[in-house]
Structures are given as structure tokens and as C-alpha cells.
């Protein structure tokens, strides 16, 4: 319990750092962010609304600490300003719209990649020196060296355009109403297939290698030898004895990799015009929509922190040593 509370305090600190970075970065930049904001919304927004937005970003005529307080107040009210590229929608609404699709695409892809990679890694460690063990690691390293979005472009090109097997953009067919119907789910799955495949292909190698190397070390431990000597079946020794402790470093790495995989999947979304956070980020950069960029930064960071805490909880469940 103490362990989880300490981790939670750490994530709170990290959250505060990201809030403060979000406040500081615009002020470190050359130029005046307040008047840039004014210029952008002049004539499009009621004067009161513009004032409210400037207050939410802390662009008030006061010393820095007061600006900071004004900014924190805006955050507490959940006010992240108004998006230029999706005018007149609020940034929070825009982000909420894309949230489901990002969670769906990255969540499913990361889980598939982690499970598949760890299983494959376990098999390779078990069959060390086999042909598969000689060929797969360098091949997966090569795949992992591609930028996520480039492999996405390649898959899009081959399976989307040249062969025309799968849909090439958006999260579901334009002719369908979102809802829980068989046609809609099928359409969503077929639209997610290529983006998900590109994320899995580029990220699976890291899990394979991590599991393979850890398990190879674990297999030479005495307690594994004892399990073999007891006459347990190889599958039982592998999964119940060795793999359970060999997967711990991968679980620790999972939280860290999450941010990285998420970054990659954001770029993948852009290639497939997939309507999640990555596509919003692209729109924000293209239209110099600073409010949306800042909102996305805060939002994605907080999501990663939360996911990391969940990984910590999973770690405690897997490792009895942490449960004291």
C-alpha cells in the first residue's frame, strides 16, 4: 500500500511539472503569446469570451505568480480555451470527441503487441539456438527501426490502395451511424486493422527481445532446475515458474514504453486520418492552434501518468515482494 501511495505522490508531482511546463513554454518563446491569441480571435469571438480565454491561459496584466494562479484557476474550472481549427468548439469538447478512438486504437494495439511479443519471446528463449531464434530477433529489430508512420504509409499503400482490401481512412464507414450494431462494429474493426497492424509490427520486437533475454536468465536459476527435477511438465515449468518472474522487467518497462508507443500511434493516426488525438495534433500544428496543442499535451500526459499508475497496481499484483 505504501508503495502505491508513494508512486501516486510521484505521479502527482509529474502532473504538476507538466502543468507548469504548459504554462512556461509559451512564455519562453520569442514574441508575445497574449497578443498572438488576441490577433487570432479578433472579430470572431465576443470580447468577454476572449477575456475569459486570456484569463484561463494566465495572460493577465499582472506579475508572473498571479498569471500562474489565474492559469491554475482556469484549469480547475476545466477551461482549456477555444480551438481555432474547430471554431467555435471548446478544446475540451474537441479532445473528448477523439478520445474514444485513440483509447481503442492504441489500447488494443499495445495489449496485442505486449501479449504476442512476450509469448513469442518466451518461445524463443525456450528454443534458444533454433532457426526461429536466429532469424526473428534481427528481423524484428529491423522492423522496429522503421518510423511508425512510415510503416503505416507502406501498409496503406499496399493493402489500401494497390490491393484495395481494406479501408484507407477514418475510423468507420461514412454511411453508418455510430452505435452498437454488428455492421458498425465490423466497420470499426476493419478500419482499425491496418493502423493497429503497423503499431504492432513496429513495437512487438522490443517485447520479444525483453522477454527472451529475461527468460534466458531465469531459466538457469536453481528453482527452475528444481521444478524440472520434480518432473513437472515443461509447459508448467515455463509458464508457472519461469515466465512469471521473467515478465516483471517487461511490466516495469510497459509503463515507460506506453508514452513512446502512444507517440508513435499518434503519428499513425495521421497517416490513416483516424479521428483520434494524433489527428487532432496534426490539425493543431497545421492551423497553429496553440490552445488545442496545449490541451492535447496536458491531456495525453495525464493519461500516460494514469496508465502508469495502473501498471504499478498490476506490478504489485504480480510481485508478492511489493505487497508488504
Amino acid at each position, binding site marked *: 500500500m505504501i508503495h502505491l501511495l508513494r508512486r501516486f505522490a*510521484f505521479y502527482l*508531482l*509529474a502532473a504538476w511539472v*507538466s502543468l507548469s*511546463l504548459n504554462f512556461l513554454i509559451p512564455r*519562453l*518563446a*520569442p514574441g508575445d*503569446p497574449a497578443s498572438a491569441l488576441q490577433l487570432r480571435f479578433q472579430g470572431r469571438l465576443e470580447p468577454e469570451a476572449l477575456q475569459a480565454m486570456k484569463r484561463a491561459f494566465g495572460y493577465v496584466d499582472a506579475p508572473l505568480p498571479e498569471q500562474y494562479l489565474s492559469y491554475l484557476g482556469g484549469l480547475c474550472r476545466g477551461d482549456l480555451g477555444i480551438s481555432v481549427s474547430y471554431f467555435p468548439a471548446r478544446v475540451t469538447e474537441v479532445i473528448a470527441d477523439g478520445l474514444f478512438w485513440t483509447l481503442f486504437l492504441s489500447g488494443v494495439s499495445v495489449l496485442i503487441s505486449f501479449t504476442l511479443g512476450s509469448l513469442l519471446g518466451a518461445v524463443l528463449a525456450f*528454443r*534458444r*539456438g*533454433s532457426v526461429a531464434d536466429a532469424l526473428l530477433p*534481427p528481423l524484428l*529489430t*529491423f522492423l*522496429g*527501426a*522503421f*518510423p511508425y*508512420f*512510415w*510503416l503505416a*504509409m*507502406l501498409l*496503406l*499503400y499496399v493493402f489500401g*490502395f494497390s490491393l484495395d482490401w481494406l479501408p484507407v481512412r477514418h475510423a468507420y464507414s461514412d454511411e453508418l451511424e455510430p452505435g452498437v450494431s454488428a455492421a458498425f462494429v465490423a466497420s470499426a474493426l476493419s478500419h482499425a486493422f491496418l493502423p493497429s497492424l503497423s503499431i504492432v509490427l513496429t513495437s512487438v520486437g522490443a517485447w520479444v527481445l525483453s522477454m527472451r*533475454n529475461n527468460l*534466458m*536468465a531465469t*531459466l*538457469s536459476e536453481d528453482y*527452475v532446475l528444481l521444478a*524440472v527435477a520434480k518432473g513437472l511438465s*515443461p509447459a508448467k*515449468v515455463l509458464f508457472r515458474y519461469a515466465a512469471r518472474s521473467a515478465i516483471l522487467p517487461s511490466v516495469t518497462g510497459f509503463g*515507460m514504453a506506453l*508514452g*513512446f508507443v502512444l*507517440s*508513435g500511434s*499518434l*503519428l499513425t493516426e*495521421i*497517416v490513416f486520418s483516424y479521428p483520434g488525438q494524433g489527428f487532432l*495534433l*496534426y490539425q493543431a*500544428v*497545421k492551423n*497553429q492552434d*496553440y490552445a488545442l*496543442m*496545449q490541451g*492535447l*499535451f496536458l491531456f*495525453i*500526459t495525464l493519461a*500516460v501518468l494514469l496508465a*502508469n499508475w495502473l501498471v504499478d497496481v498490476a506490478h504489485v499484483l504480480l510481485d508478492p515482494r511489493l505487497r508488504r
Partner: protein
Amino acid sequence: MMLLRGIWDSRQARLGLALLALFAAVAALGPFLTRDPAAFLADPLLPPSAEFWLGTTRQGQDAFAQLIVGTRSSLGIGLLVGVLVMSIGSLVGLTAAYFGGLVDDVLSLIVGVFLILPGLPLAVLLAAFLEAGPLTIAAVLVLTGWAWNARVVRAQALALRRRDYVLAAIALGEHPLRIMLLEMLPNMTSIVFSSFIAATMHAIGAQVGLEFLGLGDVSQVTWGTNLFWAVTNQDILTESWWTILPTGLAIALFGFALAQVNYGVDEVTSPRLKVDRAYTALVGQRTGLRRLLTPVVLARSDADRERTSA
């Protein structure tokens, strides 16, 4: 020297080094031998031909020249970021491990926070507010990338800190900076080198990603801006694969080469990997749970003789 010889011993690392040498040659000499990558030379989107080896872009530029010139600028930024990240990470890691106590606590906390913040959104924010250009990108990548190296170096330095020769140097009243840089650092070259490789790989990938988003200076020719223009011009729709395929392959090949060299470094630092391979080569047996022997590490010369005779 030991490290270099150890790396050279690994077949993978030799392949990696050969590829890296090829990239270095292309980056150093290539731009003098190609056409001007920015000039409008021919009809748009010509497929590869004898005259234009990789065809032309939507703007009628030579795609091959863009690939070669892009190699120089992208590798330049990657190496610069790699060196900076390695230096900052090593310094922070060494400082934390050397002084320990409160200094270590504070530094480790900062490192932990920077590790957990997702790199791309932070980099996007920084790159969007600062002036676009290769040096901005480099600064952004250093800021979002240094923490991992600091953590790795700190872990290794903590072990060294307790060694007798370090304690002796402290007792002699040597300056902390001298002890860190001249006593401890030389004994962790392999970990520093491997973190340099990882940092460079990460820098190339992240740089391409940022430029792909349009956050670089799009008038420059780099791997990332080449792909940015390919997407902006919707080259996939016109099925002009030659503007997309070569750049990605170059990026992956470079990353692959670095990973292979890193594998060699790994073998130097963890002999178990080496023993395993030597054992498999000697016995030629598939190894599963049936082989649970304690590996015996032979002296290098013996191991070499064994391997060649087998």
C-alpha cells in the same frame, strides 16, 4: 580498446559497423556528387529512370539527391543529439551516484519525471512555440531525451562508487569532478557507448516524426521533410512510391546498423550471451529446459580456438 575489440568480435556488430561506415561515406561525400536537391529539374512525379535514379517529386526535384542530402542533415542532427544526450545524461547520472543522499534524491526525482512525460506531445509543444529549424529540433530532442541515459549511467555508477579505488581517490582528497570523469567514467565506457547508440536511434526517429508533422523547417532537405512533402502532396494517392519508400528504408537501415553495434556492446557487458552462443556453436544442440548446465567462461584465446576448431 578492450571495448572496441570486444565489439569487433561479434559478427552482428561487424555488419553494423560496415553499414555505419557506408552511411558516413554517403553523408560526407554524397552531396558533392548529386544534383541540387531543391532545384526544379524535370516533370513532376517521373518514375525511377536512368537519369533520375529514384524518380522526381511533385515539384520535379531529384528524389535521389534529396535522399542523399537528407542523409547528411538527418545524421548530423542525430549524432549531435546523441553526443549531447550522452554527455548530459552521464554527467547527471555520475553526479547523482557520486554525491548520493539529497543530491541523488532530487536528481533522481527530476530524471523520473522527465522519463514519464510522453516525449512527442512535449516536443510538439516546444517545437511549435520556438522558431522552426534544425537547431530547435536538436534542442527539443535533447530536452526530451536526456533522462533515460541519466538513469542508466546512475545505476552503473552507484556500483562503481563503492569500489576501493574510488574510495581511495576520495581519501586522497581528489576533486569530485576529477574522480567522476577520470576515475569512474573510463570504467563504464561500454554503458555510456550503448546509451549513446540508443540516444542517437531515438533522436533520428523523433526528429523524423516532428518534421513529418511539419514542425521542422520545411524548406530544408532532411529525411523528415522529404516524408512531410510526400504526405502533403498526397503521393500515396498517385501511387508514387519512389518518394516514400527509399527514405523509410534508409531510416530503418541506419537504426538497424546501430542496433547491431549495440548487440556487440551487450555481448561485451554480459558474457552470458556470449557463452550461450559459443555453447550452441560447439554442441550444435537445440537448447531448452533439458540444458541446465552452469556455463563455463573460457579465457578469450581459448574460446576463439575452440570456436575455430569446431
